[in-house]
């Protein structure tokens, strides 16, 4: 989605979030069901943030949706190799709108220390990423930080953004078809 300021451009001229939009956005922000695509070390830290000490359940996120149809947020935690990239893309495509992507950790975001022939240098080469979380692996605090950034994004997004031309253009860049419409 890019920065929050960009959203104004997204919304077209003079478009303001209506009250309904705001309510829905708040509802969405408080009920982001994650799909943890956790492959390696960061996955363990994500499990840590699920645990009692950090408890992402406070954000209404404890219901993990391993089925992409039910998920709102794709949490990519861990190295994505070139072999795995098509699968990641497929999972992203299977998710229903609205959907967001959180890229957790150095490997997922940029490849980290694995600047090697087999590792994808950042998942943003395959799917659009909304928020990047640095760290190798990031602490649960940082993951929660990223999740809250996602919430911020969700809260500022109107219901119509997903039908806008900008959004389509963004997905076109990744060769992803917008579901349905």
């Amino acid at each position, binding site marked *: 989605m890019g920065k929050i300021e960009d959203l104004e451009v997204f919304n077209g001229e003079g478009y303001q979030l209506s009250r309904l939009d705001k*309510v*829905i956005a*708040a*509802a*969405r*922000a*408080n*009920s*982001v069901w994650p799909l943890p695509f956790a492959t390696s070390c960061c996955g363990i830290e994500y499990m840590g943030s699920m645990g*009692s000490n950090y*408890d992402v*359940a*406070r*954000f*209404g996120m*404890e219901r*993990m*949706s*391993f*089925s992409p*149809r*039910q998920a*709102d947020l794709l949490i990519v935690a861990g190295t994505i190799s070139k072999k795995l990239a098509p699968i990641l893309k497929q999972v992203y495509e299977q998710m*229903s*709108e*609205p959907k967001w992507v959180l890229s957790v950790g150095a490997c997922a975001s940029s490849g980290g220390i694995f600047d090697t022939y087999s590792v994808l240098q950042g998942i943003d080469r395959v799917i659009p990423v909304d928020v990047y979380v640095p760290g190798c692996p990031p602490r649960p605090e940082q993951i929660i930080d990223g999740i809250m950034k996602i919430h911020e994004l969700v809260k500022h997004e109107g*219901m119509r953004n*997903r039908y806008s031309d900008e959004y389509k253009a963004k997905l076109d860049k990744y060769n992803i078809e917008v*579901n*349905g419409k």
Partner: protein
Amino acid sequence: METSELIEKFIVIVILFTVSLGVAAYATYFERKVAAWFQDRIGPDRAGPFGILQPLADGGKLFFKEDFIPEKAEKWLFILGPGIAMFVALMTGCVIPWSTALEFGENIVEMQVADVNIGILFIMGFLSIGVYGIMIGGWASNNKFALFGAIRASSQMISYELAMGICVITIVMMTGSLSLKDIVVHQHGFWADGYFTWNVFKQPLAFLIFFICALAETNRAPFDLPECESELIGGYHTEYGSMKMGFYLFAEYTSLFISSAVIAVLFFGGFNFPGMDNFEGNTLALLGIAAMFAKTFVFIFLFMWIRWTIPRFRFDQLMHLGWKKLIPISLINMLVTGLVIAYCEGWFN
């Protein structure tokens, strides 16, 4: 049937549906909180004070999520599945007596949508239909995991219905009526003639088996095989998103509520409470409602407590438990009950 009576029934129905849905919605919140407490966590606390708006947020989100039907799915059945699940879950509540009648001047309002004289059979019937929601949904998704979920659900529910039915028969034998109201009235008060009146004291084994079967019928842990995450991803609702998925969740929690209510009615005296003879009229009815709901919530809590404590069965072990343990035990229980009744009625003299 007069118009006023119809309106009255209508109001009761509306209230019942609202309450069922409300309880179901807040059961999700309660479940999350209970789980959190068991696990030394806080649970949802950011949507509203103490996270109280969490169910609304979930509902709002699900409602406005993209409605997606997989290409290869059987379209109509795919839609029908959650519908059936929801319908069945709501219908079961109709025959449950929530309390004694309330009086508004001339009007006497029964706290029950319909006192069908085969009420308990009605519940069994709807329970047995409930499996269609899952089966149809799972099959129509055209997904192997969903299909596995559907297959598991169907065989599990059929199997446990049997033991459940036998336990119900034991209760019916003791009461002599299939009407839930009669069953409740039969357990009047708490203590009479040197006995506890509630069925649970007379039939602890039947209660235990019924409770286990209720867990299985509502697909709760440790019998949540049709949807267990670690094996089948989402089970029958793997392919469902948006509000259809919400319907399944709703149905699950509604049936949780209703089965707790049924357990309260069958074994824990429904709206009876100790010392109820000191009250009468509307006070009694209101206290009855309170007692009934208190019992129901205790069972809802118990359901959750169990879910967050014990591991789940494997499929063959579940069948084994149902067919080789619960059914024989409940049959023996029924037999003994029959003998005792016969003895009490003086057949052996």
